[in-house]
């Protein structure tokens, strides 16, 4: 449905997007993950015809966005980073305008009612967009992308700035939409794309770092989990005991002292759950665990990890 090959966007000497290639099949939800300024929005803007690429091609439904923009744009529903809302219109008027703008030929009332139903904005239909809350504005932005029922939906950071309840609602909505649409969504938060995407494309400094199924990325990331443990007991002895524990790859004292307890970071061997042995070992010595939590990986950690993984894979192949 979407094919991007050797896409480059250069601003002066800076490469915003540097030779990116990937494709997205029909009915697939792909998460586009990367830190701010990685080139996510630029790629999306090129794909939707808002920007032109320096070189390379972007095709939607087999149609090149530069060669036949009119036909290609008809296939795309786009929610930019900032929803493109005319704040002096009511929600109903705005969606009707978008309907006309996209030159749709459906049953107007029925279609717009459906879109408002799906995105749950029907109850604010008659209100001016400028008076809506951020969550509603975001949903009107999504509604706008859905008008005309385009085959491809492109959402640039659809959940940014929403409260947790709204985030869950939008995630569910995207998952539902993914059943009969091709969806690309971007985010700079790993858990965000993990929650909805079938596949994750990770991009950094304009280059693709990883392009894998969500399960695979999750496995790599959770492989060798990191825990933060708070233990009551003498620091040096506790640390020595932790290091001796089977399944522990690395242990270190972080040095946060609270009454008589210290915090330690423990990284486990891949595929081993060290929490139980940890508990029993410490209980035997009479040291109490008063806190234990899994430490989430930051995007940078994920990058490092994936890079390592890639290098290891390549080396492995080289030896065989």
């Amino acid at each position, binding site marked *: 449905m979407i094919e991007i090959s050797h896409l480059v966007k250069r601003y002066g000497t800076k490469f915003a997007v540097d030779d990116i290639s990937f494709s997205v099949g029909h009915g697939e939800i792909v998460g586009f993950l990367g830190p701010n300024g990685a080139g996510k929005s630029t790629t999306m803007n090129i794909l939707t015809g*808002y920007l032109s690429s320096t070189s390379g091609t972007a095709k939607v439904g087999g149609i090149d966005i530069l060669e036949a923009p009119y036909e290609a*744009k008809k296939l*795309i529903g786009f929610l930019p980073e900032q929803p493109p809302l*005319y704040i*002096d219109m009511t929600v109903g008027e705005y969606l009707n*305008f978008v309907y*006309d*703008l996209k030159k749709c030929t459906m049953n107007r009332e029925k279609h717009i009612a459906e879109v408002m139903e799906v995105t749950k904005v029907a109850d604010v239909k008659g209100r001016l967009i400028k008076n809506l809350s951020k969550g509603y504005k975001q949903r009107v932005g999504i509604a*706008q992308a859905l008008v005309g029922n385009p085959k491809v939906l492109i959402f640039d950071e659809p959940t940014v700035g929403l409260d947790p309840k709204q985030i869950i609602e939008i995630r569910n909505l995207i998952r539902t939409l993914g059943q009969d649409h091709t969806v690309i969504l971007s985010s700079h938060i790993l858990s965000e794309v993990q929650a909805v995407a079938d596949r994750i494309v990770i991009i950094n400094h304009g280059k693709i770092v990883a392009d894998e199924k969500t399960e695979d990325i999750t496995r790599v990331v959770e492989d060798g989990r990191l825990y933060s443990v708070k233990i009551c007991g003498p620091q040096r002895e506790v640390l020595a005991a932790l290091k001796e524990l089977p399944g522990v790859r690395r242990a270190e004292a972080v040095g946060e002292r609270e009454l008589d307890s210290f915090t330690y970071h423990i990284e486990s061997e891949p595929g081993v759950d060290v929490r139980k042995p940890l508990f029993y070992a410490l209980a035997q010595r009479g040291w109490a665990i008063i806190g234990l939590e899994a430490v989430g990986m930051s995007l940078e950690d994920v990058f490092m990890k994936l890079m390592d993984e890639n290098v290891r894979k390549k080396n492995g192949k080289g030896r065989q």
Partner: protein
Amino acid sequence: MLAIYKREMRAYFTTPIGYIFIAVFLAVSGFLFGITTLQSQTSDVSTYYQILMFAYIILIPLLTMKTFCEERRTRTEQLLLTAPVSLTGMVMAKFLSALTMFASTLLVTAIYFVPLTEYGELNWPRALGSMLAMFLIGMTFIAIGIFVSSLTENQFAAAVGTIGILFALLIVAAVNSLIDSYAVRAVLSWISIYSRYAYFTYGIFDIAAVVYYVSICAVFLFLSVRVFEKRRWA
């Protein structure tokens, strides 16, 4: 294109801009009409329209300052530029909606012809010629205003920039007569919007002038399209 046109027309009346434009236009025009014709007891409207032309310097930017820079500032242009609409269609829709506002307000000034025919003898060819010239000049100014608006995302900058250009185009005629060099005068007269206007006031339909105004208009609209084209590639 029709969708954008309709939205623009609505926007003039859901924001104060449309009302301010019509009110100020008619107030200035009524005042000028009172002074130039009624008070001087003449049925010749050419002086009135001639002075009204200078009011355009302030009035036209009111209509055009928002057209593109507001879209750019609020990022709504992303919706327009990713929709199946051509750039030309988008620019034309904006242009035509501003032109509709301007032309319909200008038409209201035809009311002034009623007392003139009632209590005097109106020279119809001269009156209608002047009005047509006003329409053409206004149209040209709108195209220039839209072009300036496409360059910036600051409404104020767009308005001031437009005022500057329109002022320059009108006073070129006055400056021109002070210059000795023939070459400079020839060049300046090409861009003098004011001097093309003269024939209409005598009731002569000057086809060359019509072509001139329409061409200038087309050039600036074309440039606006190019601005969007260029920004996509930048």
